[in-house]
């Protein structure tokens, strides 16, 4: 494998890791607050459809992005009402929303555009286009680092950089702010938060809303940056891989970044089975590469790579009692 092939693969790694990263960070907020969210997939799908449709109809990617966030927020709100207000089962609510999104996105897209459940292709202002970072052209000829900067680091859409910036931001919010302290506390022991005079319900809804916004970004990225429009089931299980990354990273923001880059790398390899075969001299079936993130997560859950301790109050509705 030559250097330029490696750069190509790293370039796709970053592009493919971004939706995972956004979704995984979104799930991090909800889960650290004690609300498990298996519905990342559904929220991404809803956001992808809404952003693709609105971006096409309005011609503005920003309106599309807003629509995506809005759609994801609606799904997050339903999950919040079901699991916080009515203390329902969080897994069932999440699964139900995933099914709802899978069916409804296709239905709405078909009603609007009659193109077999897809939204029409978008281009120009209706899409997030690659941004060339400063000096990328000038540094292109610097050996080794120049092409790395030009090919891999530069030339992505704004959302890629936003996703990466969100990693330190999430860490800071969680560990250095009052909101973060309370958020972590409510996921560990809601009774402690309640008796300290802080609203458990308010905190959890805030967390679920953040999840909605970030998951909206992830979905919008799928339809308006990674692809040019929405297609049936376009998230293809990324919501679940993001969840796997979150567990793999033990619910910590910086580790989430590494997990998503790793899983994105596997996805990039799955697109280039020829390269994999050339490097390791064995023909690896693509489904095996697709399954790698899950296999790794199972290993983590089985305790082989350190112990993954979920937030203690995760999945448990809070019932006030003494």
């Amino acid at each position, binding site marked *: 494998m030559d250097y330029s092939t490696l750069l190509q693969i790293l370039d796709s790694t970053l592009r493919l890791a971004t939706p995972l990263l956004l979704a995984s960070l979104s799930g991090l907020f909800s889960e650290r607050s004690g609300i498990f969210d298996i519905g990342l997939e559904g929220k991404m799908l809803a956001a992808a459809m809404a952003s693709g449709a609105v971006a096409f109809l309005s011609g503005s990617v920003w309106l599309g992005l807003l629509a995506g966030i809005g759609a994801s927020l609606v799904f997050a709100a339903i999950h919040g009402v079901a699991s916080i207000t009515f203390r329902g089962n969080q897994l069932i609510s999440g699964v139900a929303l995933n099914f709802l999104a899978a069916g409804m996105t296709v239905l709405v897209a078909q009603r609007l555009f009659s193109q077999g459940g897809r939204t029409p292709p978008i281009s120009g202002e209706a899409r997030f286009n690659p941004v060339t970072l400063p000096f990328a052209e000038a540094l292109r000829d610097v050996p080794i680092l120049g092409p790395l900067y030009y090919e891999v680091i530069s030339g992505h859409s704004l959302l890629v950089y936003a996703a990466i910036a969100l990693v330190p931001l999430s860490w800071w919010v969680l560990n250095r702010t009052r909101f973060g*302290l*309370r958020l972590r506390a409510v996921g560990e022991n809601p009774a402690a938060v309640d*008796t300290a005079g*802080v609203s458990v319900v308010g905190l959890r809804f805030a967390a679920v809303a953040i999840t909605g916004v970030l998951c909206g970004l992830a979905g919008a990225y799928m339809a308006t940056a990674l692809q040019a429009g929405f297609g049936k089931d376009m998230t293809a299980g990324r919501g679940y891989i993001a969840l796997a990354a979150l567990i793999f990273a033990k619910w910590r923001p910086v580790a989430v970044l590494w997990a998503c880059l790793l899983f994105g790398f596997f996805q990039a390899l799955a697109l280039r089975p020829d390269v994999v075969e050339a490097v390791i001299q064995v023909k690896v079936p693509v489904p095996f590469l697709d399954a790698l993130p899950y296999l790794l997560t199972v290993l983590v859950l089985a305790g082989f790579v350190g112990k993954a301790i979920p937030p203690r109050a995760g999945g448990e509705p809070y019932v006030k009692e003494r």
Partner: protein
Amino acid sequence: MAENTLAIELKGISKAFGPVQANKDINIAVPKGTIHGIIGENGAGKSTLMSILYGFYRADAGQIFVGGRLTAIPDSQSAIRAGIGMVFQHFKLVQNFTVLENVILGAEDGPLLNTSLSKARKVLEGLSRDYELDVDPDALIEDLSVGHLQRVEILKALYRQADILILDEPTGVLTPDEADHLFRILKGLKDQGKTVILITHKLREIMEATDNVSVMRRGTMVATVKTAETSPERLAELMVGRKVLLEVEKKPATPGKVVLKVDDLRVRDEHKVERLKGVSFEIRAGEILGIAGVAGNGQSELLAALGGMMRATGKVTLQGTDLPLSGKGSDGQSRRRAGIAHVPEDRHHYGLILDFSAWENVAFGYFNEPEYQKNALFMDNDALRDDTRRKMEKYDVRPPDCWLPAKSFSGGNQQKIVVAREMEQNPELLLIGQPTRGVDIGAIEFIHKQIIALRDQGKAILLVSVELDEIMSMSDRIAVMFDGRLMGFRDPEETDERELGMMMAGMAGKRSGQGEAA
């Protein structure tokens, strides 16, 4: 400030949960700068009343005056603002946070943590100096002992500038030493002009620590008296509504031959941590061996291993026969057949199935017995129910309705159901853990009498309890457990709480050795 101003005054507080009237027209006045005890049996409404004061529940009727002013307390935030702090029986702390983080949670000074943390560090230093409340502010909660956890809870309240501190059953999990320390802290708080409300069911603590005491019974306030002008007997009578025997009456034991011999018993938990580190003892027929100790020092594992609920290594002999400690024959059913009855510590998880009716609960362990089989396929449920009715009558279970689900009985009656089932199988050895936890005084008296009666029939009894009073009054011999080992044996007549307390804290007592009952 005048001596007689009131910190808290409650007028006509009522609260119902469905058909249950938890508080009925409660009036209470707590003078400023005093330690005020509230005593009552389980279910008397003490905790409900304090939860209303802390804004956890809303009263159906009544008024709350704080410092003489009518105050509405719809939520905990308002209670904190009014200067009320609460230390719950089950601590409300975040396990993987530091002490400092727990203290500032909900009382942060701004959106960023840095300033709050450094301020809290200073305040905590001052508080620990003033009140003997020393805790490492950077320690993680999960690494601290219960005594320290309680101090963190008190610090939390003081950091929120509470003038009135409510403590709900604070000594349940403490060693006598830690309890003494707690009372010194409370005394210090009182001297600084703070008001302390102490909820407990332990008469001794009331007598030692409080200035005034209010007695509750079945949701009503029965009396408020000056502690100096009353006696434990009088208080117990007020609590129960009739005269009760506080001292257990029993004849001296007449130990017979050895029933149970335990040699080097070891147990590991699911994390492979050794919980029982080589325990050896004997119990003779007609003898009660009491195991004292702070909860979590291996007593639960001892009961579980002997009762067939946990695998163990070592050697256990019951009336000369070796009991398998793992694999075939080490299950609870085999132990029962071997003649061991077990009243588990946690009756809600191991003693009863709460949603099942009383007769089904009493049938556990017996439904395979020949006398309850109608034919090859069916059990004789009528026989089981008749049997249950007989046991319920004998053990005074109220109400005596064998169809009622276990959860509908009070704590004391639930325990009587378990005790009836276990004792009526006429075992050679009775394992009984926390026999009176969450049980009202009347039922305690009854259960204690039954245990003594079983002993007098020449049975061996292993009694595990965290209540030192219970151990001292019931046992014929006392062993103290600490960190998975027995620290030594004592004769209850020749030891005192002080010595046992030292042993419970891991310090060897004055004498050592195996101390066979002479």
